[in-house]
């Protein structure tokens, strides 16, 4: 029995990090109806950003703040170059343009770092709580995911800029009529979504080794988590991530691990089919 409990707790902790990645994806979709296919590549960039900062002597947890700022700036640039000109075109166009951004990032990344694995090697302590073994890195990553989410909520509900983001998400035309500069808000939202993706990548890099291609699997998990929570709903995405982690943790003791992915993707397709607005209601 304790093994199952350990497995579920592990799932919960990693699920919070999946949730953070999913929020980045779902926020962009919620505000501008763009499914960001560069999400995975950006997550991988976050991993390498924290790796490079660590190499320059910055502790990974301090590096997170820098990574967030880089993410914000990078997101705004991507928005201006690849999304803004076609923001009103059919969804295929933004899917493809963000995908082309992904190709460019991964292509440059492969040329620079090849596809070999990298590690952020900083001292990690192992804690034992009532027979449950966990590393400090996992606890900190989960905690950081919760804190960032809390901060995001504070931003969205308590600041003028955040309220403007929500207004644009609800109804862009109406927001414009109210004098909100919607293009700037869209750029900032894309920046925030990118920053969240890079942050989640940075946190994952403190747990596991990674390659430039590692973002792909977390992109797929972000899709599943945000669809579970309802596309466009940040809280839902966080819970979606947690549910995903819990599923991974709680089915693992009973089935072959390699079936976990099958189960996840089947749930993903079924949720899309039968609860297209997610379990918590999304924005369509």
């Amino acid at each position, binding site marked *: 029995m304790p093994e199952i409990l350990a497995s579920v707790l592990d799932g919960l902790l990693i699920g919070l990090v999946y949730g953070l990645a999913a929020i980045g994806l779902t926020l962009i*979709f919620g505000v501008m*109806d763009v*499914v960001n296919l560069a999400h995975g590549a950006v997550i991988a960039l976050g991993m390498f950003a924290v790796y490079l900062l660590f190499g320059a002597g910055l502790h990974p947890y301090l590096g997170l703040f820098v990574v967030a700022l880089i993410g914000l700036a990078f997101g705004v640039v991507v928005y201006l*170059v*690849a999304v803004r*000109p*076609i923001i009103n*075109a*059919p*969804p*295929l*166009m933004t*899917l*493809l*343009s963000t*995908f*082309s*951004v*992904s*190709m*460019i990032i*991964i*292509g*440059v990344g*492969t*040329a620079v770092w090849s596809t070999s694995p990298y590690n952020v090697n900083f001292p990690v302590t192992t804690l034992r709580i009532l027979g449950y073994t966990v590393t400090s890195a996992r606890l900190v990553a989960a905690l950081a995911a919760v804190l960032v989410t809390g901060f995001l909520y504070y931003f969205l509900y308590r600041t003028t800029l955040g309220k403007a983001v929500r207004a644009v998400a609800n109804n862009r035309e109406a927001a414009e009529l109210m004098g909100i500069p919607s293009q700037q808000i869209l750029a900032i939202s894309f920046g925030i979504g990118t920053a969240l993706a890079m942050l989640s990548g940075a946190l994952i890099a403190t747990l596991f080794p990674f390659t430039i291609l590692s973002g792909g699997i977390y992109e*797929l998990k972000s*899709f*599943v988590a945000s*669809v579970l929570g309802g*596309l466009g709903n940040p809280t839902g995405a966080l819970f979606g991530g947690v549910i995903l982690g819990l599923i991974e943790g709680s089915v693992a003791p009973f089935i*072959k691990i*390699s*079936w976990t*992915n*099958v189960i996840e*993707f*089947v749930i*993903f*397709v079924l949720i*899309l*089919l039968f609860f*297209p607005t997610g379990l918590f209601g999304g924005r369509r």
Partner: protein
Amino acid sequence: MKLFARPFFWLIVAVTLLYALLPTLGQNVTLRETLVLSAIYIILAANLNLMIGYTGYVNFGSIVFFGLGGYLTLWLVGGHHWGLYPAVLLAGAVTSLLAFLLGIGVLRLRGAYFALATIGINEAVKDFVANFDPWGGAEGIFLPFTAFKAMGGPGKALWTVYLLIVLVMGLSLLVAYLVKRSKFGLGLFAIREDEDAAMVLGVKAPLFKTLVYSLSAFLPAVAGGLYFFKNGSIIPDEAFNLHLSIEAIVMVMLGGQGTVTGAAVGAALYERLRGLLLTIPGLSNFHLVIAGVLLLLIILFAPGGLMGWLYRAWPRLRRVLE
């Protein structure tokens, strides 16, 4: 039949013959291996175009049909000693039927939701097959050498398979053309422009979408069977390679979505471009970047692709090149 009076029909025939004869005349195997990739790309792009270009549904996971066709064929040929011809036909039919059943469900989704679902389907099938022991799981299926001997040795078998793939390519173009010229195609284009309005006008959108989804699965599945037979083996990562699926979208966009010529030219060009980038030293590391930049430029500045640009330059071309 009126079909024979159409110049475009003869153009398809000519291109198909060209692909069939060019390497055969000089028994040029290198050319054959280059053209086989080109032909496969054309098949994938032409059939994907039925969904993206005609109906306006972005199928990100179209490669799942190709992979399933490959798996079914190799399973029948390798495990059950079927001949290649009945095996690929059955593989095509079964995949098409599966697509029909699946389509009833997923085609209720629109836009980004549909796109995401198709990614999910491909990944689910890939992971399922990787765990499915009758198909070798992660080890995949390897064809015994006897399978080639039955067709007169591998040398002869590979030529036969090449010609069959070219035939499937010709059929794909023909189907794309016929659908475009039919009432069915008109319905699809109506769905692309405005699905709700099309329904009001009496287009049976759900049926049409499901049919075209199923149709777009058949020839890629047959091609998958032939291609993986030629490879002699199949593993999940190669069969359900999401990347190839997305490259197929790039090909359609490059040539011009919604046009038969565009999908074909886009596919052939993309294959040439990739081959070229790979052989130029110094650029081979950057081929993904260059493909990405190219795609972005097309989207931003020439969303109609090559054909869109040609049509604008010579409007009369529209009548000749479909």
